[in-house]
């Protein structure tokens, strides 16, 4: 009897752990994860799996040339429709754009741009914002006042308008957008992190560390930051989607990723003319890609938010 009672907690603990991890696996949003994995896969292996170059026109087949120009020698064939249309071909499954470049290959390379820009931008913003928020919350007094007033002022600007202003002085460019995203989004993290720290710094383990004479810097990084990470992760996952849209919008307006790079937003902007001619597919495919990426990021973020905040379950 005694042995059983002594073993019970261990058994219960193990079974709970097993059940909990299987719960996580079951509840995890499968489709968004699949979409994200697929996009990341395309982004990483774009040079290997993309059927054509993202920047150079696809060499036309002899038939395509004859059909379009009535002669055998032509530089490229633009605006080939997707494969299911009458003039489409399987060589360029999603058609070619106004310069005869393969849309599918450009979309694959475009995943690179969207993911890299959005992830690095939000990550840098997250690090800066979290640190400032933690400093404000932990040091309190004047630090808190100054940092939070600046954060508040920062938060009043609509992010797209703010991003446009910054891009107007920085000029187009991939890394410029990362800088801009970091500058625009840090304030959201600061808000959340500071709020969390206000309760954490009153907890016993922080007080005990202070009594033991641990240095402030060590308390911040050993005891406070690890406890803020959960909330920061939620903000991060929800911000990535917004960052993707901001990047696409900037590129759409011509102040984001410069041509000829295959940014999804830029692709949509460049095809506005052909849209009026009824060639809808050119603008729709990049749009679907953006939507899928943002949708998956948001669903994952929602799931994370609910998982990390028990009060929100069943909501």
């Amino acid at each position, binding site marked *: 009897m005694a042995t059983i009672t002594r073993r019970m907690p261990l058994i219960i603990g193990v079974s709970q752990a097993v059940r909990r991890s299987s719960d996580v696996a079951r509840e995890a949003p499968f489709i968004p994860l699949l979409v994200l994995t697929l996009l990341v896969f395309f982004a990483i292996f774009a040079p290997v799996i993309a059927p054509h170059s993202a920047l150079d026109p696809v060499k036309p087949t002899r038939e395509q040339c004859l059909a379009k120009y009535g002669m055998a020698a032509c530089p490229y064939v633009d605006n080939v429709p997707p494969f299911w249309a009458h003039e489409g071909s399987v060589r360029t499954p999603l058609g070619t754009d106004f310069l005869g470049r393969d849309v599918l290959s450009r979309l694959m390379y475009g995943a690179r741009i969207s993911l890299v820009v959005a992830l690095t931008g939000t990550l840098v913003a997250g690090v800066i914002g979290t640190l400032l928020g933690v400093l404000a919350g932990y040091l309190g007094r004047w630090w808190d006042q100054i940092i939070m007033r600046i954060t508040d002022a920062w938060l009043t600007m609509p992010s797209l308008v703010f991003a446009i202003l910054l891009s107007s002085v920085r000029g187009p460019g991939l890394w410029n957008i990362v800088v801009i995203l970091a500058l625009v989004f840090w304030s959201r993290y600061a808000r959340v992190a500071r709020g969390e720290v206000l309760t954490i710094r009153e907890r016993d383990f922080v007080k005990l560390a202070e009594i033991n004479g641990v240095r402030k810097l060590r308390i911040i990084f050993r005891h406070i930051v690890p406890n803020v990470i959960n909330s920061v992760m939620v903000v991060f996952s929800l911000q990535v989607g917004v960052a993707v849209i901001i990047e696409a*919008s900037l590129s759409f307006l011509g102040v984001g990723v410069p041509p000829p790079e295959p940014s999804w937003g830029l692709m949509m902007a460049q095809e506005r003319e052909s849209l009026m001619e009824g060639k809808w597919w050119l603008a729709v495919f990049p749009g679907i890609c953006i939507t899928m990426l943002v949708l998956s990021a948001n669903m994952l973020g929602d799931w994370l938010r609910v998982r990390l905040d028990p009060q929100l379950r069943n909501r």
Partner: protein
Amino acid sequence: MRKYILIRAVYSVVTLWLLVTIIFGLVRLTGDPVTMKAEAGADAAYIAQLRHNWGLDQPLYRQYTSYIGNLLLGDFGHSFGKSLPVKTIYLERLPNSLKLGFAAFVISLVLGIPLGMLSALRVNTWWDSVGKTIALLGLSMPGFFVGLVLIIVFGVQLHWLPVLGKGASAFIWSNPSTWVPFWFKDWSHLAMPAFALGWYFAGAMLRITRSGMLDVLDSDYIKLVRLKGVPEQVVIAKHALKNSMIPVLTLAGLNLLIMVNVAVVIEVIFNWPGVGQLLYDGLSNRDFPMVQGVVLMSGVMIVVLNFVIDVLYGYVDPRIRLSR
């Protein structure tokens, strides 16, 4: 109450000053307003001339004091391309943006609030899933994609709606007879851009209505009303709805202003002559004073609105005004 309003006012002024200073600083720290006007490899004398014209060759504190001084006088500088004060051009365009913003606002409310209520009342059912899906799609489909799809379907394929422009009606400040009809004409031009713009905010509205409603339905006084045997319709219409609308209306007010200011891409797609397009024109004409002016105005509008909301909150809820 007077003290509360005073504190909020000081707070808003500080926020405004910080905002203006942040913009001043960031523009000079992260880049150079001249890069916008002069392409790479431009003549050095030309660049020096530009710097001089914009006062960028002066010491930083001088630039700052004259910048703040001009703003206090309501002077946002002169547009480079049109050689008119930025303020004049801005005011000319503002009614168009307001019209688009209002229409999008109405669409977001009409779509968001009923759907949000429905999914809160039928929580964890099929209705709820539909609501959640629409909310997610609203937040995930960029407005400009929605706009392009609308153009493809209703403009290019079906030819139901005009694709470009705002129609013939105009709002002219000097001519009061145009002030009223402007809002009620050319709805066919308004339909697509307003939907594309309102779409995103409908998702946000839906979410906040749903969670507000769930919170209220969970509260003690709703339980009490139900225990008293009040019919369910009355519980919802009279007791739950009113209380759940407070956060919704706050967000709605803010959203209206945000819609007026972030419609840039939508306005570009539909060639809608609002302030967003002004921002875009400023970008493509390399007109820095214009870009800065539009951005500053949107900041000012939002700070002022936040102040108004705070004061209204203070009126409505004594706990708020006594807590500070």
